C-alpha cells in the first residue's frame, strides 16, 4: 500500500474520533449506567416485595377480607373486587367519551377556530394535572349534588376524569396515523364523512386506541390519591355489589396495610404489591402485543 491507499488505510483506523474514542466510550458507559440504575431499582423493589410477600401469596389473599384481629390471614378480596368494579366503570365512562371527543377534534372540528385551539391546549394540560386534583373535583361535585362520595360511582368518575385526556390524545394520534388517502378514497366513492369515520378511520385507528386506553387504565388501576381524597374506605369486609356500594381498591388497601405496625400486615401488603405488579405487567404487555401486531399496516 502506498500513497493515497496508505493514507486512507491509516485514517480509517484512526481511533481518536468515531465510536471508539474515549469520549464516546465514557458516554456509552454513562447511558448504560442510567439504564442499569432504573432496572436495578425495579429489581430491588421486586425482590424485596417478593421476599416479604411470598409466604402470603396464597389462596387466602384472594378469598379473605382484611382483618384487624387476624392480620396473618388478612386477604385482599374486597380490594381486588373493588379495583375490578372501579376500573370497569372507569373504562365504561372514559373510553367511549374519549374516543368520541378524539374523533370530533381530529375529523370534524375546524382546527382554525380559536375555541378548538383552546380545547386542544387544555386537553394537553389536563393530561399533566396531578391525579389528586381529580379526586378533589369529584368530591366537590358529589358534595354539591348531595351524593355519597365513598362509593364505586364516585371512584369511577374520578378515575375516568383522570384518564379521559390520555384517551383523547391516544385516539387523536391513532386517527392521525390513518393515511389521508384512505379517507379520500372512501369519500371519492360517495361515502359520507360519517361513514368514512365508522368504516375506515376508526377501524384503522383501533389498535392505537386500544393500546392507549389499556395504558391509561393501568395508570388508573395503580392510582390511590384521588380515591383517598374521596375518603376511600380502608377497612371493607364485604364485596362491592353496585354503583352505590362502598369499596376499597388494591392501592388503597396496600397503603393502609403498609402503615400498620404489625409485621403480618407488611407481609400481606408485599403480597398485594406483587399481585398488582403482575396485573400491571399483564396489561402493559397486552398493549405492546396489540401495538406490535398491527404495526406497519400502511
Amino acid at each position, binding site marked *: 500500500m502506498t500513497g493515497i491507499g496508505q493514507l486512507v488505510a491509516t485514517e480509517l483506523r484512526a481511533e481518536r474520533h468515531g465510536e471508539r474514542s474515549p469520549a464516546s466510550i465514557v458516554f456509552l458507559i454513562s447511558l448504560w449506567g442510567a439504564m442499569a440504575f432504573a432496572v436495578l431499582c425495579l429489581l430491588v423493589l421486586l425482590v424485596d416485595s417478593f421476599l416479604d410477600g411470598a409466604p402470603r401469596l396464597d389462596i387466602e389473599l384472594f378469598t379473605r377480607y382484611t382483618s384487624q384481629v387476624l392480620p396473618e390471614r388478612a386477604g385482599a378480596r374486597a380490594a381486588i373486587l373493588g379495583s375490578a368494579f372501579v376500573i370497569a366503570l372507569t373504562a365504561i365512562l372514559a373510553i367511549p367519551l374519549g374516543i368520541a371527543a378524539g374523533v370530533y377534534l381530529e375529523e370534524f372540528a375546524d382546527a382554525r377556530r380559536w375555541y378548538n385551539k383552546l380545547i386542544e391546549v387544555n386537553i394537553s394540560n389536563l393530561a399533566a394535572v396531578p391525579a389528586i386534583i381529580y379526586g378533589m373535583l369529584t368530591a366537590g361535585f358529589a358534595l354539591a349534588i348531595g351524593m355519597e362520595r365513598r362509593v364505586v360511582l364516585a371512584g369511577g368518575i374520578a378515575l375516568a376524569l383522570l384518564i379521559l385526556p390520555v384517551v383523547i390524545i391516544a385516539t387523536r394520534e391513532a386517527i392521525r396515523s390513518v393515511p389521508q388517502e384512505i379517507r*379520500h378514497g372512501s*369519500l371519492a*366513492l*360517495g361515502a359520507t364523512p360519517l361513514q368514512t369515520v365508522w368504516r375506515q378511520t376508526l377501524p*384503522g385507528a383501533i389498535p392505537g386506541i386500544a393500546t392507549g386506553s389499556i395504558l391509561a387504565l393501568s395508570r388508573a388501576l395503580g392510582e390511590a390519591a384521588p380515591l383517598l381524597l374521596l375518603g376511600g374506605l380502608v377497612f371493607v369486609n364485604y364485596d362491592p355489589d353496585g354503583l352505590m356500594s362502598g369499596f376499597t381498591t388494591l392501592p388503597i388497601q396496600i397503603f393502609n396495610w403498609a402503615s400498620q405496625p404489625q409485621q403480618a400486615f407488611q407481609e400481606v401488603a408485599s403480597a398485594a404489591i406483587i399481585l398488582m405488579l403482575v396485573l400491571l405487567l399483564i396489561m402493559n404487555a397486552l398493549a405492546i402485543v396489540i401495538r406490535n401486531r398491527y404495526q406497519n399496516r400502511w
Partner: protein
Amino acid sequence: MATYVTDGSKPIGSPQAPVNSTIVHPERHERTLPTKPYPIMECADVSVFYGDFRAVSNVDLTFGRHEVTALIGPSGCGKSTLLRSLNRMNDLILGARIEGAVTFHDQSIYDKDVDPIEVRRRIGMVFQKPNPFPKSIYDNIAYGPRVTGMKVDDMDHLVEDALKRAALWEEVKRKLKDSAFGLSGGQQQRLCIARTIAVNPEVILMDEPCSALDPIATSLIEDLMAELRKDYSIIIVTHNMQQAARIADRTAFFTASMDYTSGDRTGTLVEYDTTSNIFGHPQDKRTEDYISGRFG
C-alpha cells in the same frame, strides 16, 4: 369533423423529434372526433383559491362525453387542483374555495342545494398513489355500493363485473377474500379503478394514475382507459406527455403564469384542442416549447 389519428409514425414533441415510445398502441386512436366535444362537464371562468392564493385562474374547458381528456403542464400549474374541483374533493382542503361555474349535465355542482356526496358518486376519482382499503379485494369493490346504498341484487356479480371491466378479474378471481395489500402496485391501481367503476359513475377523474407504476403496469392501465372510454368519460392529469399523446382524445395544456392582480404565480389554461393538434400543430408558442421539451 377533424380526424384524429396517431399511428405511431407521427412525431411526438417537436416536428423533428423521432417517436420515442416503446409501447405503441395505434389501434386505440383510430377514431373520429367531433370538432367540438359533446359536453358532459364544463368549466366556465373557474378560479380555485387556497386562502388568498389563487392556484388556478379563469379556466374555460368543455369535457367531452366518452372521451379521454388529458390535462398536462409543468408542476404547479394547477392541473391537479382543477381536477379535484371537478368532483368537490377540494372541499376537503381547509381554506379551498372556487369561483366560476363547474357544470355536470348543465347543472352547477357547487350550487348550495347540491350534495357533494352525490357529486362524488357520479364523478369518481382515482388517485396518484394506489389507495386500496385495508380490506379484502372483494370488500374493496363492494364498499362503494354498500355505503351509497345502491340496490344490488347480486353483489358477487357486481364485484365480478367491476373487476372484469378493470381487467383484473383473471388475476384475482381465486383470491377475492385475500387482503388487497397483497396485490402489486399496478394491480392495486386497477383495483382502485374497479372500485370506482362499481358505483357506476359517469365521469372518472384520474390524478396521475400511473406515476407510481412501472411501464408494464402503466401500459395495462392505458389499455384499460381506451376500453373504459366506451362507457365513461375520463379526465386524466398526467406528467407524462407521451402518455397524453397515446391515450387522450383531447389535451389541455396548462402553465403557471404571473397573476397581475396579486403578483402570485397562478395556473392558467394555455391551449385546448384535439391531442393530434396539440402535439402536431400547437397554436401557442408555450405549448410548442413545452411539448418539445424546451421548458417544464
